[in-house]
C-alpha cells in the first residue's frame, strides 16, 4: 500500500447549467487505498453529487466547471468520454441507497450480478457465474444458487442489500462509492450490513467513499471524514480527532444535533441560528472571493 491517495479530488467545482448556481465549491478530497472516507452533510449539501461526479453519472443539468478527479494518479476529467467510462467501470463500483430500485424487478438476480462482468469486463459467462456464487457466499447469503435464480421481490431488504454489496465487489474494484447504503434498513439489519461492508472492504483492501447523513455510522465504519455544507467542505479530519473535538462550529453543531440515547439532554440539540448564519456567510465569502479572481 502506497502513501499516494488512490482517489484524489482537487478543486472540484460543479454548477447547474444555465443559471450557473454552484453545487460543489472547490472540493478537495483524498482517500488512500484501502481506507474508508465518510462524506457527511445535510440533504442538498452535495455529498452524493461528489460520488456521481467521480462515476460520471451527474444529471444532465449539472456540469463540472473546473477541477481534477484522479484515480490511481490519472485525471479522469482529461480522458475522452469512452476511455473515462472504461476506466471508471474497471476501477470503481457503487453500493446504492435503495436496494429495491437498484435491482431490476423483472429479472433474476444472477444476470444482474454477472452482466457487468460479462459485458463490460469481458469475462466468459461460466466464470462470471462462479464468481457471483462465490461472492454471495462471502456476503453470507445461504443457498447462493437459489438466490441467483430469485427475483428481487422474493428477498428481504437486508438480503437485497447484501446482493448489491456482492455485486459491487464482484469485479474487484479499487474504489467503492457507498451512497447511504443502510438508510432504508432497520437498525438491527443496518448493523449487520455495516459490519459486512467493513469486513469486505478490509479483506479486499478497497478504498471507499461512504456517503451518509449519520455521524453514528461514520464513527463505526470510516477512518476519516469530510463535512459538507452547500457543496463546500467545511472540515476534513481523521475520525479520532473529529469525534474528540470537531474543529468547525458547524461540525460541532451537527454532532450535538445527532441523536444519542445515552445522553438525552446533551444530544438532539437544534443547530443555533448563529451557526447557520456563520456557515452561510462563509460560503458567500468564498463565492465572492472566487468572483474577485475571475
Amino acid at each position, binding site marked *: 500500500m502506497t502513501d499516494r491517495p488512490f482517489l484524489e479530488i482537487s478543486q472540484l467545482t460543479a454548477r447547474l447549467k444555465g443559471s450557473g448556481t454552484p453545487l460543489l465549491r472547490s472540493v478537495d478530497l483524498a482517500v488512500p487505498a484501502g481506507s474508508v472516507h465518510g462524506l457527511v452533510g445535510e440533504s442538498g449539501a452535495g455529498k452524493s453529487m461528489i460520488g456521481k461526479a467521480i462515476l460520471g453519472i451527474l444529471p444532465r443539468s449539472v456540469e463540472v466547471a473546473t477541477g481534477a478527479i484522479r484515480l490511481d494518479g490519472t485525471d479522469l476529467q482529461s480522458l475522452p468520454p469512452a476511455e473515462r467510462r472504461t476506466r471508471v467501470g474497471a476501477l470503481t463500483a457503487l453500493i446504492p441507497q435503495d436496494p429495491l430500485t437498484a435491482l431490476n424487478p423483472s429479472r433474476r438476480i444472477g444476470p444482474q450480478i454477472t452482466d457487468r462482468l460479462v459485458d463490460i469486463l469481458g469475462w466468459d459467462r461460466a466464470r462470471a457465474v462462479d464468481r457471483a456464487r462465490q461472492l454471495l457466499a462471502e456476503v453470507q447469503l445461504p443457498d447462493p444458487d437459489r438466490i441467483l435464480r430469485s427475483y428481487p421481490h422474493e428477498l428481504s431488504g437486508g438480503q437485497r442489500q447484501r446482493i448489491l454489496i456482492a455485486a459491487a465487489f464482484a469485479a474487484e474494484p479499487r474504489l467503492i462509492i457507498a451512497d447511504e447504503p443502510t438508510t432504508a434498513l*432497520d437498525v438491527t439489519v443496518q448493523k449487520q450490513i455495516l459490519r459486512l461492508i467493513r469486513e469486505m472492504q478490509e479483506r479486499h483492501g478497497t478504498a471507499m467513499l461512504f456517503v451518509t447523513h449519520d455521524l453514528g455510522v461514520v464513527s463505526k465504519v470510516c477512518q476519516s471524514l469530510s463535512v459538507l455544507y452547500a457543496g463546500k467542505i467545511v472540515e476534513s479530519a481523521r475520525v479520532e480527532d473529529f469525534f474528540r473535538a470537531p474543529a468547525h462550529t458547524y461540525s460541532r453543531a451537527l454532532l450535538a*444535533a445527532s441523536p444519542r440515547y445515552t445522553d438525552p439532554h446533551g444530544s438532539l440539540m*437544534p443547530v443555533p441560528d448563529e451557526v447557520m448564519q456563520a456557515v452561510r456567510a462563509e460560503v458567500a465569502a468564498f463565492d465572492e472571493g472566487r468572483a474577485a479572481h475571475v
Partner: protein
Amino acid sequence: MSEPPSDVLYGVEHLHLSLPDLTRKPLLGPAPRIHILNDLSFTIRRGEVMGIVGGSGSGKSTLGRALVRLLEPTGGHVRFDGTDITHLGEGELRPLRRRFQMIFQDPMSSLNPRRTVGAIIEAPLALHGFDDIARRSAEALDQVGLPRSFARRFPHELSGGQRQRVGIARAIAMRPDFILADEIVSGLDVSSQAQVLNLLEGLVKDLGLTLAFISHDLSVIRRLCQRILVLHRGVIVEEAPSDQLFAAPQAEYTKELLAAIPLPDLDQVWA
C-alpha cells in the same frame, strides 16, 4: 360520556388485528389472514407522551392506525376517553375524529401539493364546523413557529422541517386531546429533527396534549417520551418507563435494538 373522567385517555385490551393476505389467496375461498397485532393490552394516560418503537413490520404503524380508527381491529377493545371505538361506524366516529389527530411521516405526500398551507390547515376546521377559521389557522401557524405569510405558500416552497410544522399545525388547529405522530422526524435532517422535536415537546406541555409517538429510533423516543412500548412481530415485548427501559432493558429484543444503534461516539462497543 357514561363514565366519570378518569386519567386514562386510551384503554386498549386484547387488541387483535389481522388482514387478508391477498398474495396467498386461493382462486376460490377466503385469503389466509396475516396476524399483524396479537393480543395487545396497554393504557395511555392523559397528558402522557407514549413512545412506540419497533423494527419494520413490527406492527407499530398498524397499532397507531387502529388507535385513530383508520383501521378496524379484528378483536379486543379500544376505548377512547371511556367510549368503546373498536367497531364504531363512520357516522358515530365523526364527532370523535376531531379529538384524535394524526401527523404523518412524509409531509410531502400528506400535504396536498395543489393547495396552499392556509387551505390545508383550514379544510379540516371547516369540515368540523369550526367558527373563525382564518384566525384559528393563523394561530396554529404561530404555535408551530411559522410566519403567518406562509399561509399563502404551497408545500413545495417549504423545506422538509417547515412542511412537517404545517402537518403539526393542521393537527393542533383542531384542538385535539390526542395526537398520533408516526415517524414524523425520520425523513428530516438532524438539525431540523431536533427543532421539530423541541416544538412538539413544547406544544404537548402548553396545550395539555396526549401524544403517541411512533419511531424506529430509540434515541429520538428517549428524548420525548415518558413511557415506551417495544413492539416486535405484533407483540408487546416490553413496556416500561423511559428511564427504566434505558437503564435496564428486560426483553432480548430491546437489548438487541439498543446494542445496534451506532452512536456518534468512538468509545461505544459496537462490533
